[in-house]
């Protein structure tokens, strides 16, 4: 009986998750009357705005990942090595973006950095891109921090640091040549999650008026019938592709196998 219930729950869960996706994917293929086709996808890929917004979001994701790595890896490392007592506090701070809505953050940014403020970042495209990158970094912080922290947990940070120090290494060498390569898989996991978040993000990009992929999807969704589900399928494919890459990186990272 228990076995039956377990199977029932699994099948119900799968159907609950997959049916809407299947329905959406099927609808996206119905652009041509009476037959399935990839017309909606072709239309999306032919649209130069798609490529422009998608490229912009990818570039922003890249910048966010770089900022995230520079912010999170040294922080998580230092907390683990020297300030373990500060860990609950740091964890709480990194969780805040999950409970503070993006709209609150972005309104805060606009109030602090508008054109009449002491640091008018929204006055230029570059300044706004910088602001958006910082906003994205904040949004991705819970995922990036947890990934890196989990990665650091798998290695003996203190002893590896001392071993490197005894061999003459300074902090930058230790971080760059010992710690970062050993948590690279965790960093990449965080990076792919960041990519997935940034590519689909709407609120910040829309309110800061930047040509990102999220607002493009929203505009398309408001004006077309078949292209939005095609875009949604593409967005899902990107997210799943990122998750697949995370798995691949973990599997093919030679020294990581030692931890398994």
């Amino acid at each position, binding site marked *: 009986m228990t076995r039956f219930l377990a199977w029932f729950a699994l099948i119900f869960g799968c159907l609950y998750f997959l049916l809407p996706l299947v329905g959406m994917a099927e609808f996206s293929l119905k652009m041509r009357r009476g037959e399935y086709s990839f017309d909606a996808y072709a239309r999306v890929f032919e649209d130069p705005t798609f490529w422009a917004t998608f490229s912009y979001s990818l570039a922003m994701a890249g910048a966010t990942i770089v900022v995230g790595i520079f912010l999170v890896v040294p922080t998580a490392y230092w907390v683990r090595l020297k300030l373990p007592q500060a860990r609950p506090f740091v964890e709480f701070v990194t969780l805040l973006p999950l409970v503070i809505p993006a709209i609150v953050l972005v309104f805060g940014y606009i109030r602090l950095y508008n054109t009449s403020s002491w640091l008018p970042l929204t006055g230029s495209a570059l300044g706004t891109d910088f602001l958006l990158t910082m906003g994205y970094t904040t949004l991705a912080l819970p995922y990036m921090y947890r990934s890196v922290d989990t990665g650091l947990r798998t*290695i*003996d940070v203190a*002893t*590896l640091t*001392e*071993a*490197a*120090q*005894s*061999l*003459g*290494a*300074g902090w930058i*060498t230790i971080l760059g*040549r*010992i710690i970062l*390569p*050993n948590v*690279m898989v965790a960093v990449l996991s965080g990076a792919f999650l960041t990519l997935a978040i940034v590519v689909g993000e709407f609120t910040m990009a829309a309110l800061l008026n930047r040509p990102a992929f999220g607002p493009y999807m929203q505009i398309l969704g408001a004006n077309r019938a078949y292209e939005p589900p095609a875009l949604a399928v593409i967005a899902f494919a990107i997210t799943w592709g990122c998750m697949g890459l995370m798995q691949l990186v973990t599997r093919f990272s*030679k*020294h990581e*196998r*030692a*931890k398994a």
Partner: protein
Amino acid sequence: MSFLTISHLEKAFGSNRVVKDFELDVAKGEFISLLGPSGCGKTTVLRMVAGFERPTAGSIVIDGQEVTGLKANARNIGMMFQAYALFPNLTVADNVAFGLKVKGVAKPERDTRVAEMLALIGLAEKGGSYPFQLSGGQQQRVALARALAPSPRVLLLDEPLSALDAKVRVSLRNEIREIQQRLGITTIFVTHDQEEAMSISDRIVVMNAGIADQVGTPFEIYNRPTTRFVANFVGTLNTFAVKVEDAASGLVRLGGAALTLPAGLATGTEMHIALRPEALRLGREPGYDTVVPGTVEEVHFMGSIIRLRARVAGEVVVLDTFNRADQPPPSPGSEVEISLSGKDAIVLQG
């Protein structure tokens, strides 16, 4: 001439003083072991020499250079850790080359040195392997090669054999000693294993509650302990409470039998003496002036040695006797005679 001088070294964590007025002079090329129970401060002393802990007071001088305030990466000290601490992302060769790379040694010279080090530890063919592909013993040998590659002034070994199985431990400790002697590198070895310390050290520092209780050669530490702690910690001891009956002859009584200790003890002095298990002989033995009766309580067969626990004068004593195929050991409950000599007795002080 001392190569490494540790003077009045102190370390306190809050109100807890873990190292107290520690003094040590180490000659160049000497192999020193810091031996003591857990929490006695031996690892803290080593970490202060390495630069991982800042002393509360005192100084450390290496080859005439005061290093007390120097950062760990500026001391040119090699270190081996209990947990191997090989860099998992680097191959064996890259691990060994790490210190040389940090120092800015040119690649051809670096490659030569790495090959030399790998040959030294007998792992020349493992240069391309990753640490996880090696056994514990092999990993620790790589850790030794890595520590030695940049030619450090001092080699520090923080219980490097603790994580290994018994057989590998013995072979690796001999290997470490051999390499240390070949290179003539000044070495400090931290261990809580007295057999390990005895077998490879030039001198041993027995530590107790943050202080160096006794510094001496393994022979001195074992045979002439100067404090009760050292006597009890190193090896097995049989202790007896005795009273000096005659100062001139050093006469004391043990289980009704007379035992002659070295002269110089005041008549009426009550004290403890100790005898090692191997100083007690089963049966009457020529040259042993005292014979006491005893009852065997336990017999432990340990291969080449048989360890007996017997009751003598109300005390349980341990004695070791060599295993001989033609002479079976006494069975528990049997009455035996035990010979002993006053010249083997250790008078316990402190």
